[in-house]
Structures are given as structure tokens and as C-alpha cells.
């Protein structure tokens, strides 16, 4: 099984949970995306790793056309259905891997990607592909959960993420993001760090985390150093708060 297959099989059966998820459907980061697109008259916009399609739904009213691309076909079935339900006929869907995008060079006026890059098997290649399909001067907005700079926090986060979801690859730090964006040919124009509270029950339900892994996450949290518990604001029920960031960049 390839790694794309692995992610696709992992997320396929739970696609509708991502359309319905409040964590994914709402947020100041989505408002920011809509504000960045409004009034710009963009023609073609790519939602890279669209998941439940929430970036596409917000982008569609401000773009000629939105291509929602994801490695998981059942996600795309849900997105196509939801786009029709919301009367957004300018959303089309394509099954694609971030590392090998099926689009020509310099094709998109804006490339958007939210909560996807931590699943890519090759982060640098994915970003280079995003740059390749973006027109020079195109807007790029990358939003993802990020790893804290402190190694102890980073290690605890990646461990919780992997126990919860075997298709997790890696959360990158803000510094790693900035460096890779620059290497890929994006000039960073803006950056906003946010905090996202995650409810343990729904967080593990979305990925159908096995009970023994849920217990392992709870044990990890309980035994974690106080600095770790404080950073992630770990609550009694395992709910915690994760760091996220929006990187607003320009294809150069």
C-alpha cells in the first residue's frame, strides 16, 4: 500500500464527519481566507487537500472556479454533494496527491491549503508543486496545525497525533514552514498564529481512534511534564489546545 493509499483508506470511511466537524467548518482562519479573496476577482483557485471542503465553500463565492483536490476519493464525493447542496456550482473535484499535482504550471490565481500538509509524505515536494501550479504573483495561503519550537513539546504533540491517527506524518514548526515556503518559491507576506481547542471525544471519534490508543494518549498526557500539560492546556477529559498558523504568501 502506498502512503497516499494509506491516508485515503484512513479517511475514506469518515469523510462525512469532516464535512460536519465544527473544528473544520468554522474559524477565524477561514474568515481570513474569505477576506483575502473577496473583491480580488480571482479566476481559478486551488483548494489543496480539501478534506471536508470548508476552504472551497468559503472561496467559491469570491472566485470564478475552485478546484477541490484531495487524496481521498470519498472526501471528494462528500464535497461534490455539499457544494451542490450549498448551490456552489463553480466547485469541481479532482483526486490528486500534493506531491504530483495533475495541473499545468502557472494555472491558479490562488492556492489555498488548510489542515492538509501534516499528512503529506513529502512536505517540500508538496510545497514545490503548489508553487509550480500557482501563477507568478499568485496568492498562497497555507493553514495547518504547527509544532511548538521546544523539542519536548514537539515530541509530545507528534506522539499524540500519531497515536490518534496512523496516517499522521508530521506537524512542522513555524520556522520549518517559513524555511520550506521560501525554498519552494513563496515570499511570506503575513503570518498569524492561533490556538485551536480540541475536544478529546470528537477529536478521536473523527479518526475512529482505537480504544487502546485513546488510553495511550490519556496516559501520555497524564504522565507528561507540567510544562507540556500547561502548553497544551490538557483538561481532565483529555481535551487540549493545539497551535495553528496561517501563512499568507506570494508566488515569486
Amino acid at each position, binding site marked *: 500500500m*502506498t502512503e*497516499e*493509499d494509506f491516508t485515503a483508506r484512513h479517511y475514506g470511511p469518515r469523510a462525512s464527519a469532516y464535512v460536519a466537524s465544527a473544528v473544520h467548518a468554522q474559524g477565524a482562519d477561514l474568515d481570513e481566507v474569505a477576506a483575502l479573496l473577496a473583491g480580488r476577482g480571482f479566476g*481559478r483557485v486551488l483548494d489543496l487537500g480539501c478534506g471536508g471542503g470548508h476552504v472551497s465553500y468559503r472561496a467559491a463565492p469570491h472566485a470564478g*472556479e475552485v*478546484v477541490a483536490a484531495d*487524496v481521498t*476519493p470519498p472526501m*471528494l*464525493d462528500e464535497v*461534490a454533494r455539499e457544494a451542490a447542496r450549498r448551490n456552489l456550482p463553480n466547485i*469541481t*473535484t*479532482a*483526486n*490528486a*496527491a500534493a506531491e*504530483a*499535482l*495533475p*495541473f*499545468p*504550471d502557472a*494555472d491558479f490565481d490562488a492556492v489555498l491549503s488548510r489542515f492538509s500538509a501534516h499528512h503529506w509524505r513529502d512536505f517540500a515536494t508538496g510545497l514545490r508543486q503548489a508553487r509550480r501550479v500557482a501563477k507568478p504573483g499568485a496568492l498562497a495561503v497555507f493553514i495547518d496545525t504547527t509544532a511548538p519550537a521546544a523539542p519536548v513539546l514537539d515530541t509530545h504533540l507528534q506522539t499524540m497525533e500519531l497515536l490518534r491517527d496512523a496516517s499522521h506524518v508530521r506537524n512542522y514548526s513555524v520556522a520549518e514552514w517559513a524555511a520550506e515556503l521560501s525554498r519552494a518559491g513563496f515570499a511570506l507576506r503575513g503570518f498569524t498564529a492561533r490556538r485551536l481547542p480540541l475536544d478529546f471525544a470528537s477529536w478521536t471519534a473523527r479518526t475512529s481512534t482505537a480504544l487502546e490508543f485513546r488510553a495511550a494518549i490519556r496516559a501520555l498526557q497524564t504522565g507528561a511534564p507540567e510544562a507540556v500539560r500547561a502548553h497544551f492546556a490538557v483538561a481532565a477529559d483529555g481535551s487540549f489546545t493545539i497551535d495553528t498558523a496561517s501563512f499568507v504568501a506570494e508566488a515569486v
Partner: protein
Amino acid sequence: MDNENTSPPLDPRLLEILVCPLTRGPLTYDREHNELISAKAGLAYPIRNGIPIMLVEEARPLAP
């Protein structure tokens, strides 16, 4: 997938955009088999539920 012939057709807007992810060369739409053909790569990409599956490992190698 045994129902590819009865799957909804490809959105014509996508046909204008998509290229082969391997060669980045053009694709032609085979309506009969509901596949996107990359002549350069010798691959046929399936269309399932109207969604083009643009993954090399899912593509059907074409007979030489």
C-alpha cells in the same frame, strides 16, 4: 471498479485543466471507457463517480 462505464461523465471544466501528474502532458478523454488517457505516460486514469482519479498507482497501463 466494475461500474466505470456507468459512472457520471467528467465535468468538462476539469478536462480543460487536468494534465498527467507524471508527465504533465495533455490528457484525452475516452468517453467509451470513461478514462483520461495520457499517451506520453501510456496510462489511463479512471473516473469514478465523476471524479478523476489522478494517481499514477490507480492508473491502468495502456498496451504498447
